[in-house]
């Protein structure tokens, strides 16, 4: 396993226990989703996995070695996307935001400029490079935050609610980024309330509830288990509920519109 978080406990000041026994793991090329209700500790778990918070007990292993011992150099192997882009964008311009990490890794400004240019093109940020990030729209800010972590090519992507407050077009762009990252062999961890997004992308799903993680099972098993989803204040994907209501009886319940369309094309009809 590339990244393994084992039995972590964490309390915030004031004895607020957020995590009691939380674990998850993710390997190269895999997309793992962590779902849970608001305040269940998803963000805290990602901050611990990124080595930004120290757990009261438990372990975080990167490539089998304790992450703590590999810091700060190991941070270049982990890309953390914050839920609120305004928390993540702290540089005066979009260019500086993209160049921030490169200036630590590359020796000349020409190299930095060349790489920023490639990512600006890819994430449609060319015309925004001189703008202050806080003046951008939510979708643009999200593209900047994604580009700013992908630009240093980390092995692990920790994405905290990457689709929150985004338009459907921007959600599609995020989906594309996640797909490309997993195809490139990166380990991706996403926390989300968006069950359709999870259904489309995740290989495995963990549910976090009362500071405990449950599951770690396949997406199909997790998203068809209404009791498990109830712990995360979530319901199965709408297409799954619709197909159940219509009386579809298929071997693999459709979790996405694409899977539903495929089932229809294969001749399944309501019973």
């Amino acid at each position: 396993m590339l990244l393994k978080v084992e039995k972590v406990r964490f309390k915030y000041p004031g004895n607020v226990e957020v995590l009691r026994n939380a674990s998850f793991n993710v390997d190269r090329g895999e997309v793992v989703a962590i779902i849970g209700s608001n305040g269940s500790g998803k963000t805290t778990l990602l901050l611990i996995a990124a080595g930004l918070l120290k757990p009261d007990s438990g372990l975080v292993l990167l490539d089998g070695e304790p992450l703590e011992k590999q810091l700060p150099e190991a941070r270049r192997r982990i890309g953390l996307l914050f839920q609120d882009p305004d928390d993540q964008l702290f540089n005066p311009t979009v260019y500086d935001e993209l160049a921030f990490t490169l200036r630590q890794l590359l020796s000349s400004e020409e190299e930095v400029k060349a790489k920023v240019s490639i990512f600006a093109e890819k994430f449609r940020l060319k015309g925004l490079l001189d703008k202050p990030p806080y003046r951008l729209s939510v979708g643009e800010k999200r593209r900047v935050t994604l580009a700013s972590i992908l630009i240093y090519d980390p092995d692990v992507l920790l994405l905290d609610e990457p689709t929150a407050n985004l338009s459907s077009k921007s959600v599609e762009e995020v989906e594309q980024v996640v797909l490309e990252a997993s195809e490139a062999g990166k380990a991706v961890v996403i926390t989300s309330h968006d069950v359709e997004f999870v259904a489309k992308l995740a290989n495995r799903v963990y549910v976090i509830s009362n500071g405990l993680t449950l599951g770690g099972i396949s997406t199909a098993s997790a998203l068809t288990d209404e009791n498990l989803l109830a712990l995360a204040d979530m319901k199965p994907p709408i297409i799954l509920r619709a197909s159940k209501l219509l009386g579809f009886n298929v071997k693999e319940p459709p979790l996405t519109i694409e899977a539903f369309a495929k089932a229809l094309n294969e001749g399944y009809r309501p019973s």
Partner: protein
Amino acid sequence: MKRSLTHSFLEALRDTVNDLNHEASLKSFNPTITLLSALILTATASFSTGVKLPTLILLLSVALTLYARPSTYAWVKVVLIVALWSLLVSIPLAFITSGEIIASLPLGFATLRVSREGVNTLLAFTLRATSAAAIFTAFYQIIGWRGMVKGLRGLRVPSELTAMASLSITYIPLFLREAVRLLSAREARIMKKGRLRRVWWMLTTVIGDLMLKGYERAWRLEKALRAKSFVETSPRSAPLSSWRPLKAPDRLKDLGLMGLALFIPVLNLLIGP
């Protein structure tokens, strides 16, 4: 819906910061020389005696604003706010400065006496504060906030200070935006016209929330900075050379600016207060 005075003030402040937070309007000026000139003239205006020099600096700031022309309205707002504020805080000077009495204000149990020297001191103070703010804002408009930060780096100010200056321009508008949102949420729930004290009390609860939000944002900012810091030392900053290369006429302008900034304090010594 009619907004509260606090709400309108915060909105105006946010808009002004936004207006001032622009790209350099004239990239032909060297940021270090411009900032140094700004500091010299601001200090000269602040520490001058009499009215001639601050008036001259005020006129110079008007000329610079008209020349740069990014947002005259923002400049006027800053100057007016500073003028009103300094006038307000310096009013006691008119009463406490001893000298020739020009007016008396009987207040029942006591009489307030206005002295000529007091009024002169009051006006001189207001003029000094206003001209200092006016000239600095005018220079600020020429090179923009980013230019100011580059100028600070050019002056070899410690990198921690320039980083803080750079962060503040991102977070001041965010902080103000949050304050406006919190106020709106409270105002939206004021259903009937209450006593001013009660309404004011409700609105002041924003301060506690703002402090908490500020703390949370700072906590997350620290995490964001650490998440992208792969080395223990501060990351390398953008090179100063990314500023547009200056040509001969630009260098002449810089020279003129610097000459003017140095000439005005000398002028003060020559012409007196």
